[in-house]
């Protein structure tokens, strides 16, 4: 009856997995999804997320060749190929007249826009300077730099406002209709002397940058575009920068790792089972158990998180090595050996072992790191399922399998084989017999000294590199792009939020002088903001009033300048009429978003965030060359509604805080464990049982010290996991029959060692940290437990 219910439950689980989970399953590849959220409130959280979503679609490429005369065509071949691939929503290469055309088309909306210099002159009654500049421009080459002609814009006000709102291109220069950066000798007259010339192509992906299909589309489009560019200039060199490149690299790496680690793990388990049990039935049921446990773990993550992270799967390969323990205990227990022929009832031992391991994983939940929580839930679910399968399904299904095998004559011997002889010999060997008493003490002392020396060398490092480390090639390409373009925007930015778009703009305008002050003090190089491209209605009103009073009024600057230049009264009247007609017309966010003029900074305007607590609007300001983060934070946060966001620092801080918490937790757990065992055994045997786990932890830490691996949160959590996995070893060795116990613990340790040892080769730093820590931890715990196990009478 119990078997039937359990069997039905497994069938139900597999049906749900196959027909419900698999068709809907989303594999998340966004490494950011793993990171702790550091926002102070929901608006900020949402804004940061939206900004990350938008900016992760953006890509910048520099396309370089030594053949300067081929540069334009090379860039065009690259851009055209990208455009033709359909993987991109936007590919920008040629600089055309769209900005100036848009500014001309919007003349009526833009008649009250002022550059900051002109606003300054007008507010400080220095209108005479404005007039003088206007006259100079009419007679000198200064006039040639103005996009609006003198008769359209006699005072150059519209030209100045237009020039100010387009962001600078850093080191890139407009040559013809493409942006060019020259590397090496800068000589304007002879471009052929220059070693390399680079042009700039910008693009935005069409699909979700964190979907595997998008990665595939983008990467193959890039390969094709590289080839297309190489056909024009064989020496072409292309460097790109963009979040999607990181995401694609991380995802493909993770997929490879899942396949390799999973494959190795399974092969090792199969080999071990064949070597030890020399029968087919244990192999079949063990593999089925692993399969069921994995399905349950994936389904649980799917239902709880709505997705399964690719790194959960990478880490999840360790489930193979750990979940197999219960099955192996079960089979080892059935093995006959001289003396004790009857198997123990191992259900309590299985439950105890499962509980301690699951408890180890559940400590991962203390840190507010979504990726870690998913891993904990995945592993805990998988282990509990494997344990339940062994307890509820094994005896009966093995009987059924034996019957089937007999009928099919596949395998004649259905009684379990004996414990292999080498295990039996190992079980007889004892440290006390091999070494004299003094020798044992010398060994302990030696190990303790080495351990202490290792512990003394321990360092800690809590930064985001513990979570994520992009491939060196990508970092190099990114650095190339930054150096060539001369812009150093990083992950730190400024977030401005307010109840209405107008308020966001007012706050941005209040922030502008602060940012200018920081730039003047060389604390930042510059900033990128929607202001002044988009102007608050309030500022447009004030500026219009200034213009009306000082420029367009009878006898004002317009009349004086146009009069001096020789324009007749009709022309002056026409300009005045145009200004008067535009009264009450404003440049609004909606209009601006539609205009090509917003393109360079459109992604910084985050728009509305609405929920039950109201609506908020937000915008982001990027900082270039932020060399004084503390001063910058203090200065910008003095403006209401402005937050300085530094996720990297926040994450590092969180990692540090939780490393401390986890370290204390570890000490508490060790103390509680010791206390429990003391109560349970009431003798020195308690110490003998507890020492292996505690000493294993200490030696693992010492080893990390010796190999100069800086400790972070993940190492400490792994030690808690080692405690969960390793405390069983001593208990089983103490409680179980000698030979079976040694074999069971040996198998358990070996599979865990293989699984986590493989994770130690992961390219993801935190997976690697957990892998090596657990691998060292279980190995040490096993060796100490074996050496310190009590004599069985």
């Amino acid at each position, binding site marked *: 009856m119990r078997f039937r219910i359990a069997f039905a439950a497994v069938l139900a689980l597999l049906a749900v997995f196959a027909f419900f989970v698999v068709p809907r399953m989303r594999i998340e590849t966004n490494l950011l999804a793993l990171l702790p959220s550091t926002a102070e409130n929901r608006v900020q959280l949402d804004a940061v997320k939206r900004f990350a979503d938008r900016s992760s679609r953006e890509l910048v490429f520099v396309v370089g060749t030594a053949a300067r005369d081929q540069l334009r065509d090379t860039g065009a071949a690259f851009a055209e190929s990208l455009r033709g691939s359909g993987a991109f929503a936007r590919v920008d290469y040629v*600089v055309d007249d769209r900005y100036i055309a848009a500014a001309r088309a919007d003349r009526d909306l833009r008649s009250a826009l002022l550059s900051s210099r002109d606003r300054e002159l007008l507010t400080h009654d220095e209108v005479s300077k404005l007039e003088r500049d206007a006259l100079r421009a009419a007679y000198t*080459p200064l006039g040639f730099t103005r996009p609006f*002609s003198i008769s359209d814009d006699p005072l150059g006000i519209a030209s100045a406002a237009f020039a100010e709102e387009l962001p600078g291109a850093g*080191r890139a220069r407009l040559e013809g209709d493409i942006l060019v950066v020259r590397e090496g000798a800068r000589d304007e*007259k002879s471009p052929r002397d220059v070693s390399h010339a680079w042009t700039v192509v910008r693009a935005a992906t069409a699909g979700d940058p964190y979907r595997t299909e998008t990665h595939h589309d983008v990467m193959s489009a890039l390969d094709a575009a590289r080839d297309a560019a190489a056909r024009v200039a064989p020496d072409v060199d292309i460097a790109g920068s963009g979040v999607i490149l990181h995401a694609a690299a991380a995802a493909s790496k993770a997929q490879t790792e899942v396949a390799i680690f999973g494959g190795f793990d399974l092969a090792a388990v199969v080999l071990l089972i064949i070597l030890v049990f020399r029968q087919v039935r244990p192999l079949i049921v063990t593999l089925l158990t692993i399969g069921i446990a994995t399905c349950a773990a994936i389904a649980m993550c799917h239902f709880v998180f709505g997705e399964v992270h690719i790194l959960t799967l990478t880490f999840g390969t360790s489930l193979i090595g750990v979940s197999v323990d219960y099955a192996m205990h079960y089979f080892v227990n059935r093995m006959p050996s001289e003396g004790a022929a009857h198997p123990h009832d191992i259900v309590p031992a299985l439950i105890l072992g499962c509980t301690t391991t699951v408890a180890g994983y559940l400590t991962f939940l203390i840190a507010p790191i979504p990726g870690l929580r998913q891993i904990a839930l995945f592993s805990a679910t998988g282990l509990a399922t494997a344990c339940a399968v062994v307890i509820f399904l094994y005896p009966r299904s093995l009987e059924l399998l034996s019957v089937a095998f007999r009928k099919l004559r596949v395998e004649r011997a259905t009684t379990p084989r004996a414990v292999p002889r080498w295990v039996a010999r190992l079980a007889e060997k004892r440290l006390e017999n091999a070494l004299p008493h003094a020798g044992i003490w010398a060994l302990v002392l030696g190990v303790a000294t080495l351990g202490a020396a290792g512990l003394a060398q321990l360092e800690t490092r809590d930064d985001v590199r513990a979570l994520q480390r992009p491939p060196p090639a990508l970092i190099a390409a990114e650095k190339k792009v930054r150096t060539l373009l001369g812009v150093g925007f990083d992950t730190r930015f400024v977030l401005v939020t307010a109840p209405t778009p107008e308020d966001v703009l007012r706050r941005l305008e209040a922030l502008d002088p602060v940012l200018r002050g920081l730039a003047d003090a060389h604390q930042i190089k510059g900033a990128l903001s929607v202001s002044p491209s988009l102007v608050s209605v309030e500022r447009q009103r004030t500026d219009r009033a200034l213009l009306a009073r000082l420029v367009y009024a009878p006898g004002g600057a317009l009349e004086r300048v146009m009069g001096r230049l020789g324009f007749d009264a009709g022309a002056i009247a026409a300009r005045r009429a145009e200004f008067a007609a535009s009264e009450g017309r404003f440049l609004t966010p909606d209009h601006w978003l539609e205009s090509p003029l917003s393109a360079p900074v459109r992604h910084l305007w985050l728009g509305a965030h609405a929920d039950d607590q109201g609506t908020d609007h937000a915008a982001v300001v990027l900082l270039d060359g932020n060399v004084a983060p503390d001063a910058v934070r203090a200065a910008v946060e003095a403006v209401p509604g402005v937050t300085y966001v530094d996720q990297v620092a926040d994450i590092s801080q969180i990692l540090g805080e939780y490393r401390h918490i986890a370290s204390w937790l570890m000490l508490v757990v060790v103390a509680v464990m010791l206390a429990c065992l003391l109560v349970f055994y009431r003798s020195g045997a308690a110490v003998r049982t507890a020492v292996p786990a505690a000493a294993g932890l200490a030696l693992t830490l010492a080893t990390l010290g010796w190999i100069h691996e800086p400790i972070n949160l993940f190492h400490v959590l792994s030690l808690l996991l080692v405690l969960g996995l390793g405390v069983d070893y001593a208990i089983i060795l103490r409680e179980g029959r000698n030979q079976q116990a040694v074999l069971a613990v040996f198998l358990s340790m070996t599979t865990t060692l293989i699984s986590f040892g493989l994770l130690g080769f992961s390219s993801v730093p935190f997976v690697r940290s957990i892998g090596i820590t657990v691998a060292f931890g279980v190995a040490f715990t096993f060796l100490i437990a074996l050496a310190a196990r009590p004599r069985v009478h």
Partner: protein
Amino acid sequence: MRSGLLVLLFWSAAGAIAASAAPVTSAAQLAALTRDTARSLARAQAVRGAFVQQRHLAGLSKPLESDGRFLFARGVGIEWHTEKPFDSQFILTSDGMTQRDEGGETLRISVADQPALTVVSRVFFALFALDFDALSQDFTMTGADDRSAHWQLTLAPRTAALRSVFRQAIVMGDSTVKSVRLEDANGDVTQIELHAVQYDAKGLTADERRRF
């Protein structure tokens, strides 16, 4: 009325030359066409001279006239020193432009802030140096050769961005560049006549160098 006539005259003169001779477009042919000037320029580290500039603006009955001196320094920059109707120095280098009035600096624009400025400065540099390779990146060029010492080049912008502000330039010369005519997209015309042009193989004086 007078300026209208002037424009008409210019137009017909340009038309006459263009009609009478086969246009040449390749850089090598253009270099051959302007051989005398090119030869003088090739040796020169600095070019000095005087200019008269007339700007014919839409809505203005008479052109805005200015005159002064210019200095082209190879690899350094261009100084455009307007003396009348007021004293104003305009200095263009590859990094940006500076406008100085009565000695004090009044306005500086860096090319880093305004990429479009590069186009202006490149055109100026290339015009003075008659660097056909550099010019051909931004312009399609047509030369007309009437088999006399005179030559004429017409430069039309290749790109929409440049065309939106600037329709074409006509450069005329014999042994030196004599005039440059810039036609804006909106019909404004700037006519610059150069006089007393001297090519100097030695380069800038210490005093001149300080001004850049």
